[in-house]
């Protein structure tokens, strides 16, 4: 069986499913079945692609029979397939979670008919970005997922979400414009946008021109990935969205930016002059991001800041430009997609149970709901990098790569990542203490100190909407996916050996460049 026939499916299937879900807009049940089936199929396909890409090298499809330098090629190499598998799995978990939440929030009879199609289109965009073999298709993938994310972020059109949405949309538009301009300049300079062909042609350009192109592409991707100083939009815009939307954004969207940085840095600009700049950006992203998290009073905002902060680890690994650094970065991306999504889902559960995500209002959840406490505790410790967990392994790998590098800046980065890790632990411990351990806050009467969340009405808790058995079922439907992600997070530790073996091979491929180029352009670049 030739696996390359499967390569377009992760893009085509969700688009098809989105159309189907839209057609079934009146039947919530049909919509649910379509989306779950589509995403489950995608998980299987992505797994097959990963196995084949690992065994036989990159799987390539030339869409429409137009071959590589001219037509659009979709490529699933080890990195793409791994990212695709993790992303689609996470998306599936979030979707299952949102099924139950949607029932709780809107009741079983009033489906939000736009949610499922948009979610599937978002996944299609993510898959397209991961599989794309040329820069312009990467741009299209970005636009697909961004357009879907605009809709998801402003779902319902409440004042809060419109405010958050306008920041997000304007910033995303700016990054898209930079990217598109870079594409025009790349084409003007080299006459191609196929990445495999660009890899050869960019070497022949004058240094200044290549540097300009690299800077523009990096800027565009750094905005998407929320790398400091281009990260300020993220904590402003993510927390107001519904919990599943925030979770899927946190897990996937920034990581697509990180993926694009990895791909372009390794394939197009292997001898980067910007390594030091990237190292500084990584350091500032880590430290400033986590300092922001420490200052927050709202759990979702705190998590958004840790998200920004930990992007720094990935950029650190990429900037080192060694096999170990890249491998560490890829492992960290996988770990972070799972853990960060998990934490946001749990934040949604906390909002359900406690009626708020503000740490001012929460309290006593450990006694109220021990399961919820466990669901929060494990990923929180994982994120902070407590030894048995994958967060520790990822950070350790990156630090070792930094020490091996030996430069003073690399040592500064290692120190910075230790500090960031400790501060993450501090932020997580603070959230844990205040939401779970301290006695529940007394009924807020307005005089008990300044309230920061006056503009945010407390949500209805599930107990107020559904009672008895139905509430239990709904809660299980939401806790189940969170527990599944938690299990995968732990599995990342248990199966760290094979996984790191895989990321090592992926990193070696990326550094070598030839497997990718030869798979896309079998006869060599014209």
């Amino acid at each position: 069986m030739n696996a390359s026939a499967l390569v377009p499916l992760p893009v085509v299937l969700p688009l098809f499913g989105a159309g189907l879900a839209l057609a079934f807009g009146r039947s919530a049940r049909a919509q649910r079945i379509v989306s779950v089936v589509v995403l489950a199929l995608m998980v299987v396909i992505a797994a097959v692609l990963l196995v084949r890409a690992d065994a036989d090298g990159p799987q390539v499809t030339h869409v429409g029979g137009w071959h590589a330098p001219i037509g659009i090629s979709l490529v699933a190499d080890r990195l793409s397939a791994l990212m695709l598998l993790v992303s689609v799995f996470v998306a599936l978990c979030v979707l299952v979670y949102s099924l139950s939440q949607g029932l709780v929030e809107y009741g079983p009879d009033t489906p939000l008919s736009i949610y499922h199609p948009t979610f599937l289109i978002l996944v299609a965009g993510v898959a397209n970005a991961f599989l794309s073999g040329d820069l312009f298709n990467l741009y299209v993938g970005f636009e697909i997922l961004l357009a879907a994310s605009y809709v998801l972020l402003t779902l319902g059109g409440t004042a809060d979400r419109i405010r958050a949405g306008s920041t997000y949309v304007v910033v995303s538009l700016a990054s898209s414009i930079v990217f598109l301009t870079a594409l025009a300049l790349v084409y003007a300079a080299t006459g191609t946008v196929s990445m495999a062909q660009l890899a050869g042609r960019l070497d022949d350009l004058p240094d200044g021109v290549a540097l300009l192109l690299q800077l523009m592409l990096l800027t565009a991707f750094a905005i998407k990935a929320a790398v400091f100083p281009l990260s300020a939009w993220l904590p402003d815009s993510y927390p107001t969205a519904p919990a599943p939307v925030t979770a899927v954004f946190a897990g996937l969207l920034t990581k697509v930016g990180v993926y694009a940085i990895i791909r372009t840095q390794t394939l197009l600009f292997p001898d980067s002059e910007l390594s030091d700049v990237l190292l500084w950006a990584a350091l500032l992203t880590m430290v400033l991001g986590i300092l922001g998290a420490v200052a927050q009073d709202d759990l979702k905002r705190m998590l958004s800041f840790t998200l920004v902060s930990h992007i720094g680890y990935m950029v650190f690994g990429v900037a080192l430009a060694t096999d170990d650094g890249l491998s560490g970065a890829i492992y960290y991306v996988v770990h972070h997609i799972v853990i960060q999504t998990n934490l946001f889902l749990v934040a949604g559960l906390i909002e359900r149970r406690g009626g708020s995500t503000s740490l001012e209002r929460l309290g006593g959840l450990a006694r109220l709901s021990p399961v919820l406490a466990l669901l929060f505790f494990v990923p929180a410790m994982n994120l902070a990098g407590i030894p048995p967990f994958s967060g520790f392994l990822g950070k350790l790998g990156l630090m070792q790569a930094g020490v091996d590098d030996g430069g003073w800046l690399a040592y500064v980065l290692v120190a910075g990542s230790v500090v960031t890790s400790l501060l993450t632990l501090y932020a997580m411990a603070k959230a844990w203490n205040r939401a779970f351990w301290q006695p529940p806050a007394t009924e807020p009467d307005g005089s008990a100190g300044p309230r920061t969340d006056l503009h945010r009405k407390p949500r209805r808790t599930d107990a107020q909407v559904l009672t008895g058995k139905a509430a239990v079922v709904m809660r299980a439907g939401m806790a189940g996916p969170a527990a599944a992600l938690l299990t995968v997070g732990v599995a990342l530790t248990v199966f760290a050996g094979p996984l790191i073996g895989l990321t090592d091979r992926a990193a070696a491929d990326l550094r070598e460049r030839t497997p990718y180029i030869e798979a896309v352009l079998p006869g060599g670049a014209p």
Partner: protein
Amino acid sequence: MSTNLVLVAVVGVLFAAGVYLLLERSLTRVLVGVILIGNGVNALFLVASGPAGRAPIVGLNDVDDMSDPLPQAMVLTAIVITLGVTAFLLAMAYRAGQLNGNDDVQDDVEDASIRRRAERDEVSSSYDDSAGGTMDEEGADEPSVLQPVVQPGPDGEPAPVGPEGEQR
């Protein structure tokens, strides 16, 4: 390769005007800025495609006379994307106008509130005085300096700031 200088100048003007509008607060102006820059990028693709030639249809024209079809395909894609995004932005600006009476991009409330609290040097309301014993001991060296700064309220908490102080 010869380049069309007029086209390059048009690209520059469109970008400059677009960036200026993009920096405005009103969403409608941002939208116009995006449209201008979008057209600027499209013109830039035309610059990138080299001198204009005949229609790139095999069999109709000689290959050497054809213009490069690839950038044209990209421009078409970009136009469609800009159209979609424009529609969304318009809808969002309209909704913002409905809600606020204007379509300005607003500051984040939460950021502002945290900054205010930092300026007033407040602790969060869940901060436990008995757990903060070490802090008190450190401060106990110079109580006379600390006392006048924070006037304790009737129940030992910092004087409550009324709701009027919270309003923006």
